[in-house]
């Protein structure tokens, strides 16, 4: 096998037929059934949505430099944080890793030629784009001011913004999640190469499997909920607004029944990526494979029964509060198990520090802090004080940005040579990782303090005493923004000018590294037979065992 790799390396990337140069023209992309091209279509779409959501965040942070609001009117500020939240959650984070890296990698990692339903896969991208069009229409027509949580009766009876268009956008995009999840589950069950048993699967696949379960089981609930909201808003059917006979807490139960598991839709794929990166850059087997694998499933299942911790201050019964508090602590344990196993994987490894590894190590640190601050919110008495404040904002950004986006960036850097066949400048990439790490912490750490001091979230103006911490946070946000622009530049550069990567630039295991970069349309030149476990890095002979 090693000689085969050397042979491929001799041939310049340009002269090989691969999935990128197999056919040309816009039509060959828009009608492609190749999971790799569909992954890239998603990559382009969500990058655009990320930039829109990011601009909203920058404007918010600029406004918060002054206690009286430096930039915009209250209504505009309310629309900014709503658009930021909705775009980032539903149109970036939820599809981010599954639809891009998941689409690209799942078939290759299990030794298949494509996903189980290639046409469905392309359709899910069109469905997603349709959802994006509705959402962007809602933004362009004047925006939405309900926050990403759409709580009625404000959203159903009082808001004058484009709630229905935005809700429909999320509703439609949800179907793309369901189709993608379905496709992945069937693919992982039915398309594995001979010899690729469940316990030989890379942990990224386990994580994607757990994520797909949540896609399929959770997304229909948010779809129905938003449809009911639209029905109340358009037809005045009394479902949530007590003035016409509804119950506003019913919405919160339904909303969080999806939206808490959705947090794990965002973080589980990231955890899968981290398992790949830590092993590749320390050349070690993962420590505790089955514990890491099953913790993904445990998280996916338990995540469906913790939604009530979003409602500790709504007046739900004390006993409901106690039960949801216990369950929320329980869901923290599998995450802790993962962190310990990743850390232990480094033990006696052969560790190198290319950019993807820096993101992975950054992820572990930030996710640890994000996860531990979650205990403050699972715990009833402290949640009563911190709920609805900037502490919440800081906590979930440590998970969503410090966790999910760090992992996404790490994954992009790790598989970029595979996707494009080209290397990016590693020094710039390491520099950007450092800038993002520093900018991120400066943005969000002060928000923990702000929350403990009592500053509520979703405030465009605030009392004077909170200014210093807000200015620090805004300064961090500007550093973070620069950190995100740098990779955008060198990725574009490397697409055309980067040096050829070769099939396995990191010396990693995994089927994706046994094929050429970029892979051929059918993924592998020959049919694949798997004979060994995942992460089977060559080890020194240790006789003491």
């Amino acid at each position, binding site marked *: 096998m090693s000689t085969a790799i050397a042979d491929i390396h001799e041939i310049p990337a340009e002269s090989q037929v691969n999935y990128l140069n197999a056919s040309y023209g816009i039509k060959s992309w828009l009608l492609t059934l190749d999971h790799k091209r569909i992954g890239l279509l998603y990559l382009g779409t969500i990058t655009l949505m990320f930039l829109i959501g990011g601009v909203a965040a920058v404007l918010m942070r600029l406004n918060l430099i002054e206690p009286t609001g430096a930039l915009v009117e209250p209504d505009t500020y309310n629309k900014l944080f709503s658009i930021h939240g909705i775009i980032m959650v539903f149109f970036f984070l939820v599809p981010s890793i599954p639809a891009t890296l998941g689409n690209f990698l799942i078939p290759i990692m299990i030794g298949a030629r494509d996903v189980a339903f290639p046409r469905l896969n392309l359709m899910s991208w069109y469905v997603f784009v349709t959802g994006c069009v509705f959402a962007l229409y809602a933004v362009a027509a004047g925006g939405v001011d309900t926050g990403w949580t759409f709580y009625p009766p404000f959203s159903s009876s009082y808001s004058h913004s484009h709630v229905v268009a935005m809700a429909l956008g999320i509703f439609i995009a949800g179907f793309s999640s369901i189709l993608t999840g379905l496709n992945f589950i069937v693919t992982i069950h039915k398309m594995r190469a001979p010899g690729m048993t469940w316990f030989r699967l890379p942990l990224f696949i386990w994580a994607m499997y757990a994520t797909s379960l949540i896609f399929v089981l959770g997304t229909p609930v948010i779809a129905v909920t938003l449809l009911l909201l639209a029905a109340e808003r358009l037809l005045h059917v009394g479902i949530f607004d007590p003035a016409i006979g509804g119950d506003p807490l019913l919405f919160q139960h339904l909303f969080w029944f999806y939206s808490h598991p959705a947090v794990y839709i965002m973080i589980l794929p990231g955890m899968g990526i981290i398992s790949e990166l830590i092993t590749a850059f320390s050349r070690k087997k993962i420590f505790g494979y089955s514990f890491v694998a099953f913790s993904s499933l445990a998280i996916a299942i338990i995540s469906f029964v913790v939604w009530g911790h979003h409602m500790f201050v709504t007046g739900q019964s004390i006993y409901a*509060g106690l039960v949801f*508090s216990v369950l929320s602590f329980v869901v923290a344990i599998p995450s802790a198990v993962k962190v310990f196993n990743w850390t232990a994987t480094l033990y006696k490894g052969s560790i*190198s520090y290319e950019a993807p590894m820096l993101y992975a190590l950054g992820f572990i640190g930030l996710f640890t802090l994000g996860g531990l601050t979650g205990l403050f919110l*699972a715990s009833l008495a402290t949640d009563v004080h911190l709920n609805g404040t900037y502490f919440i904002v800081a906590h979930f950004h440590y998970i969503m940005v410090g966790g999910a986006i760090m992992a996404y960036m790490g994954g992009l850097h790790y598989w970029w040579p595979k996707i494009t066949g080209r290397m990016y400048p590693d020094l710039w990439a390491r520099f950007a990782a450092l800038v993002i790490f520093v900018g991120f912490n400066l943005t969000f750490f002060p928000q923990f303090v702000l929350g403990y001091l009592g500053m509520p979230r*979703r405030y465009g103006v605030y009392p004077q005493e909170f200014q210093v911490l807000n200015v620090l946070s805004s300064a961090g946000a500007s550093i973070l923004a620069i950190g995100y622009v740098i990779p955008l530049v060198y990725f574009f550069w490397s697409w055309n000018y980067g040096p050829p990567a070769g099939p396995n630039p990191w010396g990693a295991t995994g089927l994706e590294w046994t094929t050429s970069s970029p892979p051929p349309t059918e993924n592998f030149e020959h049919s694949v037979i798997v004979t060994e476990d995942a992460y089977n890095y060559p080890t020194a002979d240790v006789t003491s065992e």
Partner: protein
Amino acid sequence: MMGLSQFGLNATKAAASSLALMIPMQPPAASTISGDIDQLYYLLTGITLFFTVLIFSIIFYFMVKYRRRSNDERPPDVHSPLVLELAWTVIPSLICVVIFVWSSILYIRSSRPPAAATEIFVVGKQWMWHLQHPEGPREINELHVPVGVPVKLTMTSQDVIHGFYVPAFRLKKDVLPGRYTSLWFEASEVGTYHLFCTEFCGTNHAEMIGWVYVMSPEDYAVWLSGGENSEPMAQQGEQIFNHYTCGYCHVADGTGRGPSLVGIFGKPEKLSSGESRVVDEAVIRQALLQPNSVPVAGYAPIMPTFQGQLTEEQILQLIAYVKSLGVQERASAR
């Protein structure tokens, strides 16, 4: 040498204190529970710091110790011992149990108001807080309370969901339309504290803020008697009761077409379905707005709805009136 280190120490102290002046780190603590919640908060902060530093240190140590020295390096095969996996599953679980128990005890304490609590009524509406004391005085975006006395807020909203939050008390509760939620506290420090709305409620959500004035009992008594509009809530309720001629049916001696309201508050009332419900604020509110949903056994369901005719504040005044009927009866029975 000594002088230098002393200088260094002083400089550090000065820097730390000037930083502390610039950056507040601690909100004022002004209720009997805020100190206890802070203790739990410190424990959680300690746990968070400990594990974050632990993980960071181990990672840094491994990063340096096991850095790749040559490309041909072959790391040894390390097996994961089951006992280690169990240890880092069980130890965090035990820590979680401790936090859960401690926290839940505090939560239950903060959820159950003492029977003797003074009542104050809160109505949230876009974008202001309306508060009324049973003695009569009304306030907007300001709440005056006595120090050292348990106070129970009964809260509702005229429109959308709001959140009543006093950081110095470490307490908040959502304020919902169509139902009552309650929040109780006992202020422990005289002073002026922020009141925030924490549930996004529209354009001026960020300006739905106010102040809580914690006063000595003497000052509070003076403040209560000093208001212009100091007719007690029960009397205001009685006027509404008479305005809508409710007494035409709800005759005090029970001979009317509706049940007598004297002494019913806090007692179970049998419904025509056979079940019985304790008459509380929520039941009275329901009886006013959807009378047919709580038909009292032995009476024809003929009461008209007052939905849309009564404001939330008027409903609270009517409730105060019905409550006062109970007190009068008990007083005369003695």
